[in-house]
């Protein structure tokens, strides 16, 4: 490296470091605010270091919003959703990627329509359907409508298209049934793609707001985002508690993401940027 290049390198790295600091401030500040009372958060100067009120805030969350129950709701809904939607998307992705059959293009095109048609268009009819089925406040009402997630199907089709045809054919020569072929031959090499899909689905459901807000009408069945938004609407908003809840919503996701990011980013990109 010449000295001129070294100078440029230092300039670029420090410039990006400043930009990253700006991006990170809100995240750091949420963690700090989660440990202060609402009063302290609005002090001048605002608190910049962690305080000692995290437990008080968590206690308030529990009192005001049944937050323990809410966390379990979120965990349960997101887990079940990830399993079921993962199965639906993987099966469909495999079907579209490895078989040639009549109507394949049309059916796949129809599913992808879901990427373009705004979710808002289905909100009202789905709400009425759920009400008629007496499914308001139920977990199936939250989970069912988005199981066939177009992006998940797209992602799995792109990944599965990379399976060598010879591998599947040699399985068939050995007398392997189609389902067995899928489970024993096609799935094992798909682990990175499946990990990416699972993180994506879990994040999607964990953070989903509008639909749960509409179908969950009782505070004991709320998910975390719905509970947080309802707390914000109160007359005397306890921001210490809300931001503690915000941290609870964000930190586990960030940890999971950091742990699995290699799979996640490469898996998503394999699907997204192929021409």
């Amino acid at each position, binding site marked *: 490296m010449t000295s001129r290049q070294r100078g440029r*390198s230092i300039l670029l790295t420090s410039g*990006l470091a400043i930009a990253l600091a700006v*991006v990170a401030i*809100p995240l750091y500040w949420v963690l700090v605010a989660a440990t202060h009372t609402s009063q302290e958060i609005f002090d001048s100067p605002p608190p910049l270091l962690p305080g000692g009120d995290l437990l008080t805030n968590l206690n308030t969350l529990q009192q005001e919003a049944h937050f323990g129950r809410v966390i379990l709701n979120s965990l349960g809904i997101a887990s079940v959703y990830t399993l079921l939607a993962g199965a639906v998307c993987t099966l469909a992705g495999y079907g579209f990627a490895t078989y040639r059959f009549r109507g394949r293009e049309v059916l796949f095109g129809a599913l992808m329509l879901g990427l*373009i048609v705004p979710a808002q268009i289905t*909100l009202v009819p789905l709400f009425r359907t759920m009400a008629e089925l007496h499914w308001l406040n139920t977990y199936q009402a939250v989970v069912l409508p988005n199981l*066939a997630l177009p992006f998940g199907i797209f992602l799995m089709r792109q990944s599965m298209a990379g399976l060598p045809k010879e591998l599947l054919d040699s399985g068939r020569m*050995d007398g392997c*049934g189609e389902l067995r072929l899928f489970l024993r031959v096609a799935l094992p090499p798909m682990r990175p793609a499946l990990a990416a899909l699972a993180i994506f689905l879990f994040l999607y459901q964990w953070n989903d707001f509008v639909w749960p807000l509409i179908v969950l009408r009782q505070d004991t069945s709320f998910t975390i985002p719905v509970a947080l938004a309802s707390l914000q609407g109160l007359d005397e908003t306890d921001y210490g508690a809300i931001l503690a809840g915000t941290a609870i919503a964000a930190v586990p996701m960030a940890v999971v*993401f950091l742990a699995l990011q290699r799979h996640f980013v490469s898996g998503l990109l394999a699907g997204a940027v192929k021409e």
Partner: protein
Amino acid sequence: MTTLAPPVRETRTRPAPARRKRSGRAAPYLFVLPALLLFAAFKLYPIGWSFVMSLHRTVAGVDTFVGADNYARLLDDPLFWTALRNTGVILAVQVPLMLALATGLAVALNSTLLNGRSVFRLGFFLPMVTGLVAYGIAFSVLLNKEYGLVNWLLGGLGLDPVPWLTDGLWAQISLGLALTWHYTGYNAVILLARLQTVPAELYDAAAVDGAGALAAFRHVTLPGLRPALLLTTVLSTIGTLQLFDEPFVLTGGGPDNATLTIGVYLYRNAFSYFDFGYASALAYALTVLIGLLGLLQFRLLGDKS
């Protein structure tokens, strides 16, 4: 592969050729069937019903057929136009700025001169992991006029407090800032992945031809990024037109409807006023708009082929 059926089972399970062919023909349909059924029940059917509903007026839970009245009302509704204009401003200002920022970030993250690339890649992607509601709430406190951290920092620089969320124009700027904070890293990662497929020889060739950094960016980087730029533009456009969570949490559409989006207005009509017919008409207008803009972008940015 050790997981294949052992030879002993082979003779037992291998079906007669005719039967095997038939089961083979049904197999693909069985694999895609769950997705298709769910799609038909929870997407196609509601989309159709929504259209029927948009031709009705709902009063006290009773639907009356009113023809195209809801669509006519749409054209005369000043709030619809306000929502449309607000969305248009975000689309025209925030989206290009964010994508330019993301492009710059992707180029920087791709540079061999950068130390600690993987740390930066992760750091800039992290906002994407925080949920919309979580960061909406965080921003609403950070941007509080009297007590927020941002105004306190600006005060330290000798600046007057900014009415981030209480003034119409500033509320739009705040919404734009929040969106940019959340999505720039995500777009940069998509662009970066594409950038890494641009052959290094092209840059070498440009250098041999005496091209400076700027010329190389214009003639090598940008053309190479084209498909990824199209993808991020289309995704951002769809996202912007459907915008709901951020304005709902950050400003509630206010002050004075300055951050009202079609998504928020639709929600209000459906679930505050229970005017399902009008909300459905709004949804259809939105869908047509998304379809038209998507088509236009593919025309303008897509390859000739």
